[in-house]
């Protein structure tokens, strides 16, 4: 039942459809969240495990930080070691790495939207009431490509058979079953989303396959190494053609279906474009020119407040990790080169230590990182494609620029980024193909590991700013720190008690039905939590009723 006046505490544990385990615990006052804490619940200690190992081997280990963003940790580790050696990989190897990273980001955005997030908006059961012919008309209109009614009949029939069989499987106990006031798509809109949910399962498989042509496998690529890449086999004309065909198919789905579905959501859920706000935005640069190492396609920076047009450059020396609210031995805020990972579990205490996560801060402030941060920074820097596509989406949904700073804005930014990135992939692929046609391509260069060095790898990955920091002593890994996007977004408060991005974003969220708080899921999911660990978001709040869901 909708309960707009609900006051009390809500715990959602586990939050599902994320990477890892997550718990949300918030305080709600008159149907609106007024405070929240975020706390990771799993410690694996990869930074400790890689100590003493050969630096060139570390990327294999840290890649296993995450099987969703998988290859990004491997690439970032390789960049850190190559940076420490003062080494530059051959341009063709950098092109291959671009193609691997780009397909990974787009794959990730797609799976996130359809399979981790869309059930927050799409009532699959309600889709059974749809008229597939009307749904096809709608799908054709929003996607800009002809959708055959027969296709939607097939999906409709399959869903009907599935539901009538009585085993709801992964849809059992969904918040939308039996109707939910915060789910507002029409039956036809629900059918379009549900059909694309299924179709996206097949499309993501194809993007992953395209990526594997260069990566050797997906998840967890194996061809990227310190020194370059090993996939000479992928440069054969038939392999490049295989990649191109898969890529074109996926690109069409993104340009039409993904874009169309975000238009449906933006139109139907204007309130989701009004909550979920954070304050500051930051991301790194990536996709540098493979020859010069300059002119990144993703240009990083920082945006303070919501001052569109005033993005500033990033100074990595200003990154520090705070420990005082995490389960670690106490210490002052430290730059990642000097960071210490010394676990000390003391039990859950929201006023004290409450997370396995450290709290990274930029110039002492919490920042949001990820696709929305990147697009806002690009928008601020006047990058045309971002401005055109963001504005087009806003106009199609009758939303304003300020609506970008929201849960829906975060979700739409991923779609816009996917479109832009897929457009750019073509250029990198053509470049690589031209090189392969011209003769033997250099994909790997020999290197020598220094005895003493330090290095950093930056990467603008799916979920935001990822950096790995390595100190090499006696040719071995002496210290290793990973500062990951979900730590920026979902970490705990800092030494000064300032909340993290997700903690900020939950405040002000409405909760229509405290038994089924889908609005909280929408906001937490909009960050695409990928933490290989769980997060508590816990409220401090006084003597209110306590409800565990």
């Amino acid at each position, binding site marked *: 039942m909708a309960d707009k006046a609900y006051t009390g505490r809500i715990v959602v544990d586990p939050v599902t459809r994320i990477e890892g385990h997550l718990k949300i615990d918030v305080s709600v006052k008159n149907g609106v969240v007024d405070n929240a804490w975020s706390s990771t619940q*799993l410690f694996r200690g990869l930074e400790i495990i890689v100590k003493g190992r050969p630096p060139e081997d570390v990327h294999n280990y840290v890649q296993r930080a995450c099987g969703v963003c998988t290859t990004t940790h491997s690439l970032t580790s390789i960049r850190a070691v190559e940076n420490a050696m003062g080494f530059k990989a051959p341009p063709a190897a950098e092109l291959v790495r671009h193609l691997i990273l780009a397909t990974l980001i787009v794959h990730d955005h797609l799976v996130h939207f359809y399979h981790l997030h869309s059930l927050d908006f799409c009532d699959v059961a309600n889709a059974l009431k749809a008229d597939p012919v009307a749904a096809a008309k709608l799908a054709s209109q929003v996607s800009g490509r002809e959708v055959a009614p027969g296709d939607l009949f097939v999906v409709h029939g399959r869903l009907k058979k599935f539901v009538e069989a009585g085993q709801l499987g992964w849809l*059992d106990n969904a918040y939308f079953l039996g109707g939910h006031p915060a789910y507002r798509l029409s039956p036809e809109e629900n059918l379009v989303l549900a059909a694309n949910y299924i179709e996206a399962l097949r499309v993501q498989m194809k993007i992953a396959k395209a990526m*594997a042509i260069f990566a050797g496998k997906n998840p967890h690529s194996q061809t990227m190494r310190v020194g370059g890449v090993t996939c000479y086999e992928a440069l054969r004309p038939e392999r490049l053609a295989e990649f191109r065909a898969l890529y074109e198919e996926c690109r069409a789905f993104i340009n039409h279906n993904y874009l169309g579905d975000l238009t449906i959501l933006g139109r139907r859920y204007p309130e989701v474009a009004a909550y979920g706000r954070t304050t500051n935005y930051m991301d790194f640069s990536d996709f540098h020119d493979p020859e010069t190492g300059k002119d990144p396609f993703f240009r990083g920076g920082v945006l303070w407040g919501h001052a569109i047009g005033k993005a500033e450059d990033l100074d990595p020396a200003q990154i520090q990790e705070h420990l005082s609210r995490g389960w670690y031995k106490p210490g002052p805020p430290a730059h990642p080169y000097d960071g210490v990972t010394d676990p000390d579990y003391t039990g859950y205490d929201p006023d004290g230590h409450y997370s396995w996560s450290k709290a990274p801060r930029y110039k002492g402030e919490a920042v949001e990182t990820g696709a929305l941060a990147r697009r806002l920074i690009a928008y601020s820097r006047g990058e045309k494609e971002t401005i055109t596509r963001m504005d087009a989406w806003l106009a199609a949904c009758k939303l304003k620029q300020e609506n970008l700073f929201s849960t829906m804005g975060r979700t739409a930014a991923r779609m816009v980024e996917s479109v832009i990135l897929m457009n750019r992939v073509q250029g990198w692929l053509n470049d690589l193909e031209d090189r392969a046609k011209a003769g033997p391509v250099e994909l790997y260069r020999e290197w020598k590991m220094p005895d003493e060095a330090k290095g950093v790898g930056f990467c603008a990955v799916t979920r935001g700013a990822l950096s790995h920091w390595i100190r090499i002593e006696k040719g071995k890994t002496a210290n290793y720190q990973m500062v990951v996007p979900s730590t920026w977004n979902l970490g705990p408060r800092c030494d000064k008690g300032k909340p993290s991005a997700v903690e900020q974003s939950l405040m002000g969220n409405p909760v229509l039905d405290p038994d089924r708080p889908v609005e909280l899921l929408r906001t937490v999911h909009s960050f695409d939590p990928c933490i290989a660990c769980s997060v508590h978001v816990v409220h401090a709040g006084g003597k209110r009723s306590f409800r565990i869901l």
Partner: protein
Amino acid sequence: MNALAQLVARRAEAEERGVSRRDFLKFCGMVAVAMGLEASMGAQIARALEGKKKPSVIYMHGAECTGCTEALLRLVDPYFDVLIMEVVSLDYCETVMAAAGHAAHAALQKAMKNPGGYFCVIEGAIPTRDGGVYGQVGGQTMLSLFTEVAGKAKGVIAMGSCASYGGIQAAAPNPSKAIGVGAALKPLGIAPINLPGCPPNPVNFVGTVVHLLTKGLPELDTSGRPKLFYGKTVHDMCERRPHFDKGEFALTFSSQQARDGWCLHKLGCRGPWTYNNCPTALFNQTTWPVRSGAPCIGCSEPGFWDQLAPFNRDVREKGDDA
């Protein structure tokens, strides 16, 4: 519904029946081949699977990276949507399930009371240091929760190297004292089917599930792996094996020999020590690491993160002799 719509509907339904049936038979045939049976066994498998209530599967996540789940999403025979809509009932899986919080927990409780029982799949290792506080789900340690769920299951599958043997977090010095499912469940007398790999090939998962449903427990090796999929070494099935036999080795990754696809043995390939079907099953239906020029790191072997490392070394530097 207007007349045109009805016409389209009838045609679509007919197509749907045809397509599903074809897909399903193709899938069963594929599974038969993956299980080392004649493709004609596919029809028999299809008969065994059809018409029954879909078997319930509870999929738990421990100390892991979700790479194994991601690998499952890449399934083609059958597609993941066919797997969860037409083959099994995926009653609990935090990565994809719609329900959250209490509703998710209720789904778990309901599935555990399923009169037909359930299969339990566990991805990830289980932290045990300090009573397991290094990994908790819903305020319960993974150790306690998984013991409860697995203890009542008809069968337990350890999905991936972490669940099988502890995996990455169990690498030295194993800060959270993570262990595999088999080690954790030993006091209960439960031995899981181990499907190691980082990630495992999803084909091996589907093949194991179908084997369980149609023929019962597959034969396992001493490391708990189905011999159907892990019976031979990567080295024995490697497409670069002829180069090995002729003593044709790539000595650097920048060499002409590396370009020409020569044996990676001296660049650290762990294929001779590694039991898995990567060369025949392929990843993503298109390649596998050695085909793409990358040495095998032995990711389906117990303790490979320590025992087969460092990976970027010629095996001779480890003092081994192939």
